């Protein structure tokens, strides 16, 4: 089937994915602790529904959460894909390379500062998340670098070490200041429960900016994904391209982590699935990642709130259930090529 898709049908499949995304959005907005008909959800969307309690619940509680999950899924998938291409490592993922842990620590630190000293600046949480994820990501890259290359296993090991260091700090701060462990879950295993429309629009803006920049750098990304030397032969400076793309990705993921904590493996699993359909990299890959990543996280969000309702499972638990086996599969395969 993938052979067939490679030849034709990339665009029709994309259109199909867009439609499916919308249907899934309606579906997951309808089901939860309170279930309504999908047709009613659609009526709410076009403002032709009367029951104001239900309407309020769907529009202000569930929809931003579902839509927000979609955007976060998209950003994580795109970011994972770009990281894999520019670091030249099929196992790169914002979670596995310590980016998310740094961001989550930054966010918790800011939350603690706000709580104790009423410290507050616009986009403070995002800025803190960005600053610390910059630090953690470059730390991981620095530790794992051997000459000009970053070996697969070395990257993962440094990622694990740096992540667990930052996660310990995060746990420490959350327990110290909130005196309970529920918040730890939010930051370490991810939660989309608190997303509102405001968050959605901020995340949407981040996604759009991310897409525009990736499209502008598409040609360079394509070259860089073939290896550093190929970039040099074709006359681009690999270091500057890599740095710009890395910074943009770190920024985008910092926003996701500030809003929903660490959600692992999305950036690993989705780009691999997409690559099976579209081939390694082209302009269309990014679009596929948006929709496949978005659908995946909407579905994970649905499972997280409905499997053991009314108790919520952290969304990172769901994505890890799916992600860990895929990780093992890719690791095995990439070791074979070493």
């Amino acid at each position, binding site marked *: 089937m993938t052979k067939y898709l490679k030849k034709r049908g990339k665009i029709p499949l994309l259109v199909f994915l867009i439609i499916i995304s919308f249907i899934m959005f309606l579906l997951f907005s309808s089901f939860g602790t309170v279930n309504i008909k999908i047709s009613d959800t659609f009526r709410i969307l076009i403002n032709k529904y009367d029951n104001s309690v239900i309407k309020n619940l769907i529009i202000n509680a569930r929809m931003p959460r579902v839509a927000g999950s979609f955007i976060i899924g998209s950003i994580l998938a795109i970011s994972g894909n770009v990281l894999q291409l520019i670091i030249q490592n099929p196992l790169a993922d914002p979670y596995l390379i310590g980016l998310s842990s740094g961001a989550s620590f930054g966010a918790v630190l800011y939350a603690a500062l706000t709580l104790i000293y009423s410290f507050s600046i616009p986009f403070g949480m995002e800025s803190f998340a960005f600053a610390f994820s910059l630090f953690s990501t470059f730390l991981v890259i620095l530790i794992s670098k051997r000459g000009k290359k970053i070996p697969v296993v070395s990257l993962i090991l440094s990622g694990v070490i740096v992540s667990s260091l930052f996660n310990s700090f995060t746990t420490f701060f959350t327990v110290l200041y909130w005196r309970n462990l529920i918040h730890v879950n939010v930051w370490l295993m991810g939660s989309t429960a608190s997303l509102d429309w405001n968050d959605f629009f901020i995340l949407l803006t981040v996604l759009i900016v991310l897409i525009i920049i990736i499209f502008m750098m*598409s040609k360079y990304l394509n070259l860089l994904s073939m290896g550093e030397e190929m970039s040099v032969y074709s006359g681009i400076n690999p270091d500057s391209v890599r740095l710009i793309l890395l910074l943009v990705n770190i920024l985008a993921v910092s926003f996701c982590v500030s809003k929903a904590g660490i959600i692992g493996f999305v950036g690993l699993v989705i780009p691999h699935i997409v690559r099976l359909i579209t081939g*390694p990299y082209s302009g269309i890959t990014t679009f596929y990642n948006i929709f496949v990543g978005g659908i995946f996280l909407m579905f994970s969000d649905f499972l997280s709130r409905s499997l053991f309702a009314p108790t919520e499972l952290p969304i990172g638990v769901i994505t890890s259930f799916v992600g860990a086996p895929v990780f093992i599969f890719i690791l095995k395969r990439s070791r074979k090529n070493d």
Partner: protein
Amino acid sequence: MIKISDLNFTYGNNFKLNINNLEINNGENLSIIGPNGSGKSTLIKIFSGIINYYSGKIEIENNDISKISKKKLSRIISTVPQDFTTIYDYNTENIIETSRYPYTSFFNLSENKEDRDIIDYAIKITDLERYRKKYYSELSGGEKQRVMIARAIAQDTEIMLLDEFTSHLDPGHTQNLMKIIQNYCINKNKTVISVFHDINLASLYSKRILVMKDGEIKLDGTPYEIITRKNIEEIYGFDCTVISHPIYKVPQIIFN
């Protein structure tokens, strides 16, 4: 014309590359030989821009290459590396298409007719037509190098650098690829600088040979002047007999 003066480079270890003066004329077919660690590949890496922190001056047609943009430089110099691998599954055509990046502008996303024509030409003369859609990673060593040669040809530069590009190949592939390069470069009067591990190949395919050792150029001349029993003994510490090629009348060495 390429002119190198007072070129100095070190990796930070004991190795030092030091070339005081070297001139290469347009259309020249030059080979560089020398034992392992002599600096031949390093010299190619400096030329191709992989290494860009050296002291001294490299000029092409009186332009200092450190002052030319990378993009412009890649319209002048193309490189065929020793081996090239990709982590992701690009097909042969994707790899060859990258050769046209130096000619596109930032906002131009698609290739034009000229790009297409030259890519098709490169694929034709390297006989890669049936490999177009095949994954590069699934090709044999010889086929991979053929793709890299097609890529360099499509890049359409005055200077082509070949960095020990046949060292992993069997004799059949080596001969085949050397013929492709030779035909192309003679027809189009290109300057070719090749690093060779194999002394006999260098002698057979070029009119001028440089011998490098310990980061310096020790000898520079025609195959006849360079390839003598005494020189080979001094440079490689290798005891050999020099014979004349029965057809091409160039010196060839055999083991004693």
